[in-house]
């Protein structure tokens, strides 16, 4: 059976297309910049690996990585968090200056839906950057290491990327939050959460608890609705 979309759903789809384009215009240069920075870091990692293996031989280099958990890709560590901060600020600060959030509160679409949609777009763009960097790391790792090291390397980076998403969500919520006291509380919570995720000592140390962090991320993903609602009603 052929399903026809209702005029209302087409209208709403068009509205979301507009909202997506707005977010994309704000974020496109940051997207490109972080991809360039990410791939520059990957290029540097690949050069170091090439040089290290050439100097010490593959077996010695591999054994060093396995025994001492020598992290050959640590250059990537802070990139997701920096990306999360930049994307959140670029996305939400222009909406807050001159109380410009009143513009989207007046659009003929539920404001909570708009806020969530904005977060999804920001999270989506962050994930695409993370994904492309992860693919690059995978490609480099498979060039120089056996499958076991490749797997453990990718698993080690997962908390970093998760820290990036948590930072993005935290900074976005902080940017929209009208009360300074709560801004500080959100800032401190976000800082300790991502800091913990970046403080591993061994490869894939957080694998067992990663699911709990994922849960925190999901909660952070909807918590913005609360400051959004208060902002809509004029809280200071």
């Amino acid at each position, binding site marked *: 059976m052929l399903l026809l979309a209702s005029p209302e759903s087409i*209208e709403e789809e*068009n*509205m979301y*297309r*507009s909202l997506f*384009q*707005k977010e994309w*215009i*704000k974020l496109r240069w940051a997207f490109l910049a972080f991809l360039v920075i990410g791939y520059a870091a990957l290029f540097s990692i690949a050069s170091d690996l090439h040089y290290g293996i050439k100097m010490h031989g593959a077996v010695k280099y591999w054994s060093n990585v396995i025994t001492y958990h020598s992290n050959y890709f640590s250059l990537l560590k802070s990139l997701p968090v920096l990306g999360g901060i930049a994307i959140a600020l670029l996305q939400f600060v*222009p909406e807050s200056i*001159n*109380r*410009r959030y*009143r*513009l989207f*509160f*007046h*659009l*003929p*679409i*539920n404001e909570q839906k708009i806020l969530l949609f904005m977060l999804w777009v920001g999270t989506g763009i962050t994930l695409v950057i993370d994904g492309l960097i992860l693919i690059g790391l995978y490609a480099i790792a498979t060039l120089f290491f056996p499958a076991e090291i490749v797997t453990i390397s990718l698993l080690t980076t997962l908390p970093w990327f998760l820290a990036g998403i948590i930072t993005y969500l935290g900074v976005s919520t902080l940017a929209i939050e009208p009360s300074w006291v709560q801004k500080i509380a959100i800032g401190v919570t976000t800082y300790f959460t991502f800091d913990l995720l970046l403080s591993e000592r061994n490869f894939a140390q957080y694998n067992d608890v990663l699911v709990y962090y994922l849960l925190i991320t999901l909660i952070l993903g909807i918590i913005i609705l609360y400051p959004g609602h208060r902002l*809509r*009603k*004029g809280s200071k």
Partner: protein
Amino acid sequence: MKNYIIECKNLTHKYGDYLVYNDLNFKVEKGKIFGLLGKNGMGKTTTINIMMGFLRPTSGSIKIFGEDSHRISPQTRARIGLLHEGHVTYEFFNVEQVERFYSRFYPKWKREYYYDLMDKMGMNYDHKISKMSCGQRSQVVLGLILAQVPDLMILDDYSMGLDAGYRRLFIDYLKNYVEKMETTVLITSHIIQDLEKLIDDTIIIGRNKVLLQMNFQEFLQKFHQYDFDFQGKLDLTLDDTVSNLESINNHYSLFSFKGKDEVLQYLNSKNLQVEGFKEINMSLEDAFIGLTGKY
């Protein structure tokens, strides 16, 4: 029966202990241009913020198209063209992008209204809004509101940051459009001289109180300024006869809705020997300042 688009009932608002106004009441009739006027800081933008649900009033209510202001549905929002104080818009867009963005939200969108105004100003379509002057930005925002073809326009301090030329352009364009489309308009401003030929009804708010609520032309006809000299300090209480009294040294200006004879009689009844009593022709701005006071 009159059809009211906006109904403000017993509205009171306080910021902490500071009372903005108490018991504000007004109605905006369909197809009329209503001026919500007053000096800076008298609560005009506060009223708009309450009206659009950005702020909850301390007490009272505003209904727009019959809906409570803090529960306006998206469908009703689509019928309201809102100009925010300071011509706030998304500055990361250019002329073309901002039109494309808004066009998808409004079913009656007429892009030609927007581009007609942009073309009149010779604006390049790739001109970024962040690089525009306040006057240029005001025309972009006006163009977007016109293209929306709203049933109600709420224009909050349209004159902010605009020189006389841009203010005139704004008003002329708006007047022409509103007459053609029969749009209801609520306009706020602290600069009044451009509004003479635009506004039908008005409410002028002062500190904590309504100073005037009437047809605008009636206000212009009935409000008078009388100048005179008086030796000594003249201390008159504001009442039905004396709407305001301003003085420089011994020279006084008395503002009143009463006729010349009535005011003279009033002064005589108080045994005040005034000299050189005469009526002064007022511009609209004189009348506004006369009513609201200089300070």
